């Protein structure tokens, strides 16, 4: 067979792609793009979208703030009395959060804070739609971070051959 000139082949590639795109979705064609915001792609479970805070678990131990490479976590707390664990015990002294801010304008989404947290207070949520017109509004306080908790998914099942993981 004589060699087809490369230019003709090139025209063939674009024509084929056009046919693919025009072909209805049902037949396996269609565009590869998604018409945001009418339809949305759901990010994978592990996607690092936004950090959620479970306030009750936080002990203000400062580990996350110290391990943050960007210094974008700010924590203040006060001592408080909590009801005893067992009935009849003495009330426990706990650290209650006054302030837990993450400045998403600085955050580089490395996930180190979530990883170092020893008390399971920080979680990743794949939520991504929280852009703001004003940069100052990207500072999420503890209420807002707490609201993200609803969007935190279960950790995905693991591929065959993986060891069972302990903890989170």
């Amino acid at each position: 067979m004589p060699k087809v000139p490369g230019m003709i082949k090139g025209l063939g590639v674009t024509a084929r792609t056009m046919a693919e795109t025009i072909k209805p979705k049902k037949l396996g064609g269609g565009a590869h793009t998604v018409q945001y915001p009418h339809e949305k792609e759901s990010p994978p479970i592990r996607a690092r979208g936004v950090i959620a805070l479970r306030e009750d678990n936080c002990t203000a131990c400062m580990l996350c703030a110290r391990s943050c490479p960007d210094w974008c976590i700010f924590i203040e707390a006060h001592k408080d009395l909590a009801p005893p664990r067992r009935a009849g015990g003495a009330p426990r002294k706990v650290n209650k959060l006054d302030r837990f801010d993450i400045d998403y304008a600085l955050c580089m989404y490395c996930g180190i804070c979530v990883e170092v947290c020893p008390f399971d207070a920080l979680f990743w949520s794949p939520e991504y739609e929280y852009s703001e017109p004003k940069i100052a509004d990207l500072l999420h306080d503890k209420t807002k971070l707490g609201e993200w908790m609803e969007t935190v998914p279960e950790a995905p099942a693991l591929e065959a051959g993986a060891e069972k993981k302990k903890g989170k």
Partner: protein
Amino acid sequence: MVAPLSDDTLALPGDGLREGVVNALRTALGDALLDVVLKPNDDLWVRVRTDAWRQAGLVLRDTVGCDYFCFLSAIDWMPSPYGKSEEDPTQPKEPIDLTVQQGYAGGDTRLQVFARVTNLAKHFGVTIKADVADAHPSIESWVTVYAGANWHERECHEMFGIGFDGHPDLRNMYLPTDFEGHPLRKDFPLLARMVKPWPGIADVEPLPGDDSEDEG
């Protein structure tokens, strides 16, 4: 399977390959070869006298066969006088030990130039170091040995303030021409860490009327 490495790479237990390199360097440079650290089957560090820097490069290129230029840079061995800016301002500052202590293959000066070249045929690399005087840090240029050293020496010049004699064009590469200071020297402060307070300071208000220290 991938083609096996050449026979020379599968070095002997004593790593005859790298020992051969050291011997070749010693023969060519004599007592200008100051120190050697050899990790068998892993890596090789040599330190040469400052005035033998260019000659060592020539020997490495022509005799040892390391004709591939990997990188050239410098180290400031003085510990940073500023620490990591991660201390509580309310606590007294711990003094920082500023003794200069060099790494592999030793050294006498605070600043050291080091470079790495590779032998592509026999699959090994050599890290070569040389001291540069603290007062007037300068050393011969490698541009005539390895053409690629040009940019690396320019970078090194602006970042460490080390002069390279015989370099054709020792302009700043990244910084503005009138920039003062040498950013990668340890005594150059990292301002980004100093203008902001460290957020890692524990800020927990005690219960009213409770002065007992932290527990659990």
